[in-house]
């Protein structure tokens, strides 16, 4: 492979799709899979860690909030009825990760994105999920329709583009 080895035909472009029951234990699966997918891009270890956190927050939100029945069962109630879909795409040197569900949706996305906003009754849930997603990626888009679900799209680019 020559110095311009990544030029022809976009060999860096890649896609991945995961469908998983919305269970707590699967948040770690999503995080590992996305980090492995992302490691094909020239992310530094701190950047990969940021990505792991951002993706975990997005998947964690699905587990905690999207499907109230599962939530009542502690978020690990067996997974029937609640699914999360994770799509990752590397294109043009950037990584795009989408985490979506078909759950209850978010009534007020702008409010939910505010730091320390939470609907959880647990006082130890800080309401920092979206804040962390925003902080640790370059762009965050949230689309939600009450009763139909939520899709979170995060874009992250390696800060030092180009390989050494």
């Amino acid at each position: 492979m020559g110095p311009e080895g990544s030029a022809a035909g976009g060999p860096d472009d890649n896609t991945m799709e995961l469908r998983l029951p919305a269970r707590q234990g699967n948040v770690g699966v999503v995080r590992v899979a996305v980090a492995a997918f992302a490691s094909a891009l020239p992310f530094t270890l701190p950047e990969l860690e940021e990505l792991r956190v951002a993706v975990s927050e997005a998947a964690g939100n699905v587990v905690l909030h999207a499907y109230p029945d599962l939530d009542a069962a502690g978020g690990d109630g067996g997974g029937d009825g609640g699914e999360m879909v994770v799509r990752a795409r590397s294109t043009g040197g950037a990584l795009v990760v989408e985490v979506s569900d078909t759950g209850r949706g978010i009534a007020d996305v702008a409010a939910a994105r505010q730091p320390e906003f939470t609907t959880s009754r647990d006082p130890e849930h800080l309401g920092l999920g979206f804040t962390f997603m925003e902080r640790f990626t370059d762009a965050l888009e949230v689309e939600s329709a009450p009763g139909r679900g939520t899709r979170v799209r995060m874009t992250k680019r390696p800060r030092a583009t180009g390989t050494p």
Partner: protein
Amino acid sequence: MELECEARGARLIVRVTGDLDLSSAAAFRSRVDGWLAESRSRDLLLNLRHVSFIDSVGLGAILGRLRGLQRTGGQLAIVEPEGPVRAILRIGGIDKVATLFPSERAAVAAWEANERGA
């Protein structure tokens, strides 16, 4: 996540290994609170050196223990993890509410020095 505890007088040392996240925060909370009550410890040293991942729920579980300690006049000290996890903790503001140490030995030495000075 694995937890190990050691009570030393009025202090409890808890060593955390693995991921402190959504799936382990509840166990962390109940076990640490149980140990604190059982040992009647005033202060808590959380050794996070071998924590491999932390998310906002894990951070919340640490801050929740801090609030409990503050209610009874206790203090929280933290041995920082290495590498990227450490940066996440700092971005989460943990350095503003707890005393951070590079090693368990340094944290214990600081406690002992503090005690001699008191």
